[in-house]
């Protein structure tokens, strides 16, 4: 396999793992969102690598990258909306204090 593709995929895997750690370990809503951003960044790296090294003539791969970038922006927008509502109601965005939302 091409070393370039391997490096890109391993970078994506590492970012995905760091993102999982961040999303699960952090108690602050904004920090949890940072973890999710890193997971999505891992997916982005993989998508660009697949486009570049496996299917450079098919632009559906680049299209998929744009969709993932949109999802990243939307996650931020809705996440900050929830953060503002939570801060207004409780004065904090610490998820330890949001046990009532636990299923």
């Amino acid at each position, binding site marked *: 396999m091409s070393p370039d593709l391997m490096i890109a995929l391993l970078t994506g895997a590492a970012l995905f793992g760091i993102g999982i750690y961040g999303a699960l370990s952090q108690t602050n809503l904004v920090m949890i969102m940072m973890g999710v951003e890193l997971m999505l960044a891992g997916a982005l790296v993989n998508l660009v690598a697949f486009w570049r090294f496996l299917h450079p003539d098919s*632009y559906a791969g680049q299209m998929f990258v744009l969709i993932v970038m949109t999802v990243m922006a939307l996650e931020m927008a809705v996440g900050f909306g929830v953060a503002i509502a939570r801060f207004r109601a409780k004065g904090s965005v610490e998820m330890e204090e949001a046990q009532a939302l636990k299923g």
Partner: protein
Amino acid sequence: MTLLSLQTLFIAFFGVAGVAFGVAVFRTASMMRSALALLFSQTALGAMFLAMQAEFLGVLQIMMMATEMSIMAIFMVMFMMDPGGLGEMEMTHQKRLSIFAGIAGALATAGIALFTEWGAVSATAPDAALQVRELGTELLGRSMLIFETAGVTILTAMIAATAVAMPALARKKPA
């Protein structure tokens, strides 16, 4: 014979930088530093895209993430009890489970990357101008429905985020 090309070196360099700054996000007590580390991580990935000859996506990534992370840094200062990290507050929970899940997720995805037969690898990529033209054709042709759906989803998310963030309206009590 050089085994590693300049492109490989740049991809590896920016990949390592992206991962290193990604780790730094969760290793600093200062929330501002976390936001900046995430910004640098995403910028390194944008540079990695440029090294992979995806010029449009690389520039888009850098521009989008610079804006997004700046907004995130502002929210950090607004909402955090200790944005500077001077109080050394403990901001984590279930650490062991998180580390295990993170390592398991990374190993699983790395395993898929290593043990899958990906087929022939293309040595060349279309030039930047052709990429932009073809992506535009893709957006307004075969993938138009998906593109339009993304637009409607953005509008929905904007309305939802505003509705959630607005204070509840005071109801008029019946006389």
